[in-house]
């Protein structure tokens, strides 16, 4: 009987160790495709993950921003407009926590796309940034072609954005924060209006940074 107890304890201790060495990892999201490749003469099936394609927008300082500007960065993307009376203030109150946590980290950025580029000119975006109390280059407010922005949201980030004059502010959009890794793959969706989910995102960004750093170390 006593022996059994020892075994059980030992087994428990071992599993505990195993769990400890397993690093938490984030899933890879978005559409994926299985492709058959030939590697060293052998047919292998490989998974191709959806990535965010290149884009071209202008930030609050008037600088042109493309995917190259985000090379080597983990980033969070969201969609908003400066005159939004509904969820945007909540989203950006929560995003400010993310900004404060990572503003001195070189490989992390936040990009907020306006879905109302007609009103939200570079000057309007700069004023919004100033009022929000953000400076430097860790949080960009991006403005550009409306079609491009909507396509990027709907087809690539897979979040809803559309114009609808029947809703307050005139736009339908959800408050998702989309977490993207250094290889432009989507690694998480978080409800930007929910403080708890945003706290989870902050934790996940730390996991993601550790993941990438170990990959580089290898």
């Amino acid at each position: 009987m006593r022996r059994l107890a020892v075994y059980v304890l030992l087994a428990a201790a071992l599993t505990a160790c195993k769990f400890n060495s397993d690093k938490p990892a984030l899933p890879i999201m978005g559409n994926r495709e299985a492709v058959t490749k030939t590697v060293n003469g052998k047919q292998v099936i490989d998974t191709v993950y959806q990535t965010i394609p290149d884009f071209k927008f202008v930030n609050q300082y008037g600088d042109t921003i493309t995917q190259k500007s985000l090379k080597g960065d983990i980033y969070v993307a969201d969609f908003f407009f400066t005159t939004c009376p509904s969820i945007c203030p909540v989203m950006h109150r929560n995003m400010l926590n993310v900004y404060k946590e990572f503003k001195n980290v070189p490989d992390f950025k936040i990009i907020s796309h306006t879905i109302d580029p007609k009103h939200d000119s570079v000057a309007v975006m700069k004023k919004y940034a100033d009022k929000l109390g953000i400076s430097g280059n860790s949080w960009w407010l991006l403005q550009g072609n409306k079609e491009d922005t909507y396509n990027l949201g709907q087809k690539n980030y897979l979040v809803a954005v559309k114009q609808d004059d029947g809703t307050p502010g005139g736009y339908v959009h959800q408050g998702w924060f989309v977490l993207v890794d250094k290889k432009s793959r989507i690694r998480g969706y978080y409800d930007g209006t929910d403080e708890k989910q945003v706290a989870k995102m902050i934790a996940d960004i730390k996991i993601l940074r550790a993941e990438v750093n170990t990959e580089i170390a290898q």
Partner: protein
Amino acid sequence: MKFKVIVFTAIMLCVIIVSCQSDAEQEFKRYYTGGAVIYKDKCQNCHGNNGEGLSAMIPPLTDTAYLKKKRTVLSCLVKYGIKETIVTINGKAYEGTMPANVDMPPIEIAKVLTYIGNSFGNKMGTIAVEEVNSNLEKCN
């Protein structure tokens, strides 16, 4: 027998006193709890869970002196919104737009004002529907 009567009268007296005292308190509670629900629904996204506002964009509701001074215009602000008037809260100027709530009945305005007027460090007592009604007549 006499003793019973005395006890009974004493109990009745207590009941009457307690219920009279808590009438006002109960009204306050009704306004306040109702106001909390409205606040969550209509104001919290902008002004925050704790009335903290948002940076220099949306003012906090924690400036007790401002709210006291503006007590008579608060109903108008909630009903008709604020357009580009600059309000100065805690010495900081805010210019922005606050949406109107033209369909909000006076009783709801009273409730939400009672809520903010007695949360976040404010202590303004009940802002009753009668007070709101008379203040609304003076909006411009």
